[in-house]
């Protein structure tokens, strides 16, 4: 499987992060004007839609401008023309009071009359009316000099529209709140975008973490689904690759274990078979009539053969133990029972070799979590060491010792020359190494006090 060192920029997290940062930077210079535009657009849309919804509604600003425009256009117009023009307005705004006052102060009100106006306007009336901008708060009044200038002396024209007909134009405050809402929405959009971005990253990282943390049935992490081809996607790919590698190595390990066990079994067989044949011939030879020297040599050969046999056994066991392929299943049981049975098996040999057994294992049982076979192996190796190296002490002691504040100990005691003494049968200490490894596997300890007077081996939890 091939991996890119870096993902494509387009699909990388880096590019997406850049986009978000860019959006954040553009927020002030672009987004704020944009929000103004949006406000304006919304305003006009709202207005248009209101106008569409009710065509009678009118806009005050528009009406004022329009009225002044009309007045300007009517400069030097005849009274008929003025009436004609105002009639058009009346048609358009039938609910409005439309009138004009000529330069003599006479009122020309367009029918139907909705409000009573003075028939003749004095100068004060005119000033008063213009000042007040109409007589009633309920009306919106626009007054314009005909010709749009008092100098034309054509009088003035006015229009009064009930206020209910006006669109409530977008006031400053309402447009400000609209702007605020827009800004807030944009903020929310930006925050949401960031949240989604990081939520996605977080979710994928957590998935990866849980895949690492919770192994499957085979004790290995499970492969995960790879998503986008960004940095995390690559991490996911690498993770899956690692799981594959782990699985392969696990399979290799099992095969290796199997091979090693078979090799050890076969080696054991191949080494012991010729040894057995040699042994058989030595045995046959011993029956022959031999000189004393020949008989001595034969005994020596038999002894060495036995040593070789033990050595093979130790080597193969050590090999299995150090490679962790020696199956040990400790369970709580009375070890004194195992010690007694083991001692019973060794007893005849001790007698033959002139060792005086001193066995004091009576009393309480000693419950330790041990694997029976492994514990027997420990005892066998220790007893064998005594037979081989401490025979001269003519003593082997087995006892249980309890001292206050300490767990009970199994003590194996000899009166040999000690472990530091030279022995013709001394080997590489494999037997003891195996003992230590086995005891360690069963959470037991071995303490050895060895002097030239003898050796005390204490086994305890």
């Amino acid at each position: 499987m091939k991996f890119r060192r870096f993902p494509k920029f387009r699909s990388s997290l880096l590019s997406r992060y850049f986009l978000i940062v860019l959006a954040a930077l553009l927020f002030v210079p672009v987004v704020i004007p944009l929000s103004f535009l949006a406000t304006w657009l919304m305003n006009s849309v709202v207005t248009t839609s209101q106008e569409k919804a009710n065509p009678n509604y009118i806009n005050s600003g528009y009406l004022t401008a329009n009225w002044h425009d009309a007045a300007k256009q009517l400069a030097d117009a005849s009274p008929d023309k003025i009436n004609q023009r105002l009639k058009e307005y009346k048609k358009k705004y039938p609910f409005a009071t439309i009138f004009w006052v000529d330069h003599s102060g006479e009122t020309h009100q367009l029918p139907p009359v909705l409000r009573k106006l003075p028939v003749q306007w004095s100068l004060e009336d005119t000033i008063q009316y213009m000042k007040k901008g109409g007589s009633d708060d309920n009306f919106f009044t626009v007054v314009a000099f005909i010709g749009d200038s008092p100098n034309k002396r054509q009088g003035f024209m006015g229009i009064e529209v009930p206020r209910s007909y006006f669109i409530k134009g977008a006031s400053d405050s309402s447009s400000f709140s609209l702007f605020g809402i827009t800004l807030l929405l944009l903020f929310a959009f930006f925050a949401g975008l960031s949240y989604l971005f990081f939520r996605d990253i977080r979710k994928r990282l957590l998935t990866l973490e849980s895949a690492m943390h919770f192994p499957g049935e085979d004790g290995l992490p499970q492969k995960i689904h790879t998503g986008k081809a960004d940095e995390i996607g690559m991490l996911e790919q690498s993770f899956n690759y690692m799981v594959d590698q782990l699985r392969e190595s696990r399979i290799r390990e099992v095969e290796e274990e199997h091979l090693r066990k078979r090799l050890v079994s076969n080696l054991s067989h191949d080494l012991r078979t010729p040894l057995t044949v040699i042994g058989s011939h030595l045995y046959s030879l011993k029956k022959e009539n031999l000189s004393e020297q020949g008989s001595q040599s034969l005994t020596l050969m038999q002894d060495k053969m036995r040593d070789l046999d033990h050595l093979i056994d130790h080597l193969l066991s050590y090999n299995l133990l150090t490679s962790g392929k020696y199956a040990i299943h400790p369970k709580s049981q009375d070890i004194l029972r195992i010690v007694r049975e083991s001692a019973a098996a060794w007893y005849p040999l001790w007698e033959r070799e002139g060792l005086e057994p001193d066995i004091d294992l009576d009393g309480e049982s000693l419950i330790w979590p041990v694997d029976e076979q492994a514990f027997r192996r420990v005892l066998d190796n220790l007893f064998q060491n005594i037979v081989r190296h401490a025979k001269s002490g003519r003593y082997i002691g087995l006892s249980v010792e309890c001292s206050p504040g300490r767990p009970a100990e199994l003590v194996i005691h000899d009166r040999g020359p000690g472990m530091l003494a030279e022995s013709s049968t001394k080997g590489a200490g494999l037997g003891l190494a195996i003992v230590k490894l086995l005891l360690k596997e069963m959470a037991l300890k071995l303490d050895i006090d060895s002097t030239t007077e003898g050796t005390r081996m204490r086994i305890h939890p």
Partner: protein
Amino acid sequence: MAIQLLYVEDDPEIGSWVSQDLKDRGYEVKWLKSGEGALDAAADAHLIILDVMLPGLDGFTVGQRLKRNYPQTPILMLSARSSIDDKLQGLQFADDYLTKPFHPDELTARIEVLIRRSGSLSDLPLELGHLRVYERENRIEHKDTGEEIILTGKQFQIFMYLIRHLGQIMTKEQIYEAVWGDPYLDGDKTLMVHIRYLREKIELDPAEPKIIETIRGIGYRVRA
């Protein structure tokens, strides 16, 4: 009638040596070089000695088949494979597992124990000191006077158990559990009392027992 042994071993040198040695010791030996034909040959064998590494079917498979067909016949595995795994696998069906190289005396001793344990007893009485024991008839008599020694049930069972494991030291737990059939829980006193009464009946001088030997701290032994 001599005890008949079936011996399966592919190595010619070891095979010829062992079978000759066993014949010299008075056994009747049928030696096969592979597991083939072992099922037929085992029909009248009192004990089967089986190697593990055999051409064709391995010793474990052959042994399992033999045990299925002749559950009463003891099987002794005699193998150069010494690992715990091999031993445990072998002992699932075999009665004993001896590794090569071995001393012929040890092989013989184990054969004797297995034969005794399986009940393939000879008609010849067993002589133990001043005693003569007829195992088939469950009878014990004084060699010189011919007087029968009557034992109680438990005393007899203890004595017979030790005789079946002649020459072996049996721990107190082993004896107690074999005779009483209960787990040994401080059955120490009970066993000691029974042994004392047993000795009063069979020993010439119960204060200095010669037949049942006490192995201090371990158990008891009846020497051959």
